[in-house]
């Protein structure tokens, strides 16, 4: 890994693979990913649906279905968490290592009040009494800037708006002062204005609490606003990884460049065609032959179709997997 070799990374994966058995063989959702998130850092992970970005972190959290197999290594604060026994894992999960999911409506239990769900985390992980836990829950809501916290604690999830539910989820993840929060598409189910506010909230929380964040999204715009470093995934592998500002200014991989082109632009004229990426990404079950992006790549050559490019260091702290990178 190019970056942060000296200090201990909060999370470091090495050649992490996720395989699912399917009729007729295996499907590889993640085909060997090595990346790292440093302390107080935000790593953005970008990719289309099916790129493996969610599966990767589900493996880290130990949330894969029973039939799936995760191999490789995932070190959280220096400790291997892949394949950790459930009791050990449960002490880390939800407290030091937290995850916020895309749809807060399905992550929050619909039949329990908000206050109860928040307090339960503290009672379970920190052994607090219910009274103390409820007080802590109230300050958690304050921390995520939900006004009128006392009233909200007594409400059910369906009584809150989407944006507010997401704030509650974020608040829940922060209750035990985690070292790392993994946010999987935290704003995809939300409107543009709410999206901006949630991302702003995450930025402030990072500054206040010093947590590391992994921000997963298919939308480069969402990631760009918050991440220090961005890793772009395609068909189960990382194809480019660089500091955010560098990646946005000068993408190395053609896929990244095209993603940048697809960013919504309010100032685009009506007569222009709206940019897009033709075709679709290969699925987990498709065999790999050469570079996975070659069928859709405008720069693909014969070499690309037969030889898979390895992830190599290119610049200072940047790596790319391409035979013909830009610039």
């Amino acid at each position, binding site marked *: 890994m190019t970056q942060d070799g000296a200090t201990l990374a909060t999370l470091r994966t090495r050649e992490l693979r996720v395989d699912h058995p399917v009729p007729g063989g295996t499907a590889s959702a993640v085909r060997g990913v090595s990346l790292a998130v440093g302390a107080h850092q935000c790593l953005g992970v970008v990719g*289309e*649906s099916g790129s493996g970005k969610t599966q990767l972190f589900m493996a880290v959290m130990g949330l894969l279905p029973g039939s799936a197999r995760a191999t490789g290594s995932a070190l959280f604060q220096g400790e291997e968490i892949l394949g950790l026994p459930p009791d050990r894992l449960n002490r880390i999960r939800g407290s030091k290592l937290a995850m916020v999911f895309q749809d807060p409506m399905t992550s929050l239990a619909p039949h329990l009040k908000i206050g109860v769900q928040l307090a339960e985390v503290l009672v379970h992980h920190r052994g607090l009494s219910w009274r103390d836990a409820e007080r802590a829950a109230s300050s958690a809501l304050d921390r995520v800037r939900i006004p009128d916290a006392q009233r909200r604690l007594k409400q059910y999830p369906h009584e809150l*708006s*989407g944006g507010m539910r997401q704030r509650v989820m974020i608040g829940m993840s922060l209750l035990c002062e985690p070292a790392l929060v993994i946010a999987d598409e935290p704003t995809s189910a*939300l*409107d*543009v*204005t*709410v*999206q*901006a506010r949630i*991302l702003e909230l995450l930025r402030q929380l990072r500054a206040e609490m010093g947590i590391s964040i992994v921000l997963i999204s*298919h*939308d*480069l*715009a*969402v990631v*760009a*606003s918050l991440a220090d470093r961005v890793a772009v995934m395609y068909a189960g592998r990382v194809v480019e990884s660089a500091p955010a*500002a560098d990646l*946005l*200014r*000068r*993408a190395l991989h*053609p896929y990244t*460049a*095209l*993603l*940048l*082109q*697809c*960013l*919504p*632009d*309010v100032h*685009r004229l*009506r007569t*222009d*065609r*709206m*940019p*897009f*990426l*033709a*075709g*679709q990404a290969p699925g987990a079950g498709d065999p790999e032959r050469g570079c996975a992006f070659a*069928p*859709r*790549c*405008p*720069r693909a050559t014969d070499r690309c179709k037969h030889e898979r490019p390895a992830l190599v260091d290119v610049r200072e702290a940047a790596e790319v997997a391409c035979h013909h990178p*830009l*610039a």
Partner: protein
Amino acid sequence: MSEPLLDVRGLGVDYRGVRALGDVSFQIRARETLGLVGESGSGKSTLARAVLRLIPASRGQVLWRGMDLLRCDGATLRSQRRELQIVFQDPVASLNPRMTVAGTLAEPLRIFERELTAVERRVRIERMLTRVGLAASMLSRYPHELSGGQCQRVAIARAMMLHPRLLVCDEPVSSLDVSIQGQIVNLLADLQGEFGTSMLFISHNLAVIRHISHRVAVIHDGNLIETASCDDLFAAPVHPYTRALLEAVLAPIPVPVPVPARVPVEVRDSDQSGREPE
């Protein structure tokens, strides 16, 4: 100016004592796209469904070709449905999971053009499938075997099967990846050009609205607060809410992005709506 195709007057929907939609009025002309922009909960989906009488309206009129859709009888309404179609937000959910693509596309023909033989139906289906950029091999597939983008194309093909005069699009690209959204938006724009279909295009995504609309209406809390031509609205928004909305759009890149050399915007496509490879 010619008669408007669709003239909505004072449309309102009350649901369980709550005013989901206030008194909304607007018009859509032939070959025109009216973009409807608003946040979730603003009532835009309610509006889409009320206009097509998929949910009951509490007040108002929806004048279409001289008749009020909200007051005509069931049979007349059904007969007009061939001219008024809708594409939904969740492409997979809008397709019957137990029906093949062929079956789904055949249904509009079975309802309105019963005199067609099976062969004629097949020809029409294949032609529309190709038109939306899908291979004929898709006909025997089921929705769960297709990607979100492909499902949406099928849904669009179904809607366009009878060349409707008005297509209501309720957030048609919001659940698709950003990289795929352009495929669908371009497709809809092309179809409008080819078939002269008017569109009511609903979205919370301002960039997409900007791209495809001739005129834009902004909805907030169940009321239309501003309606203007697309250029006017984006250049000089009047209502403070519209202004706030425009400002909130994520400034995506802190640094301007130059187009990387030799990477075309659209990836090797002669057919600009992004034909899917077989």
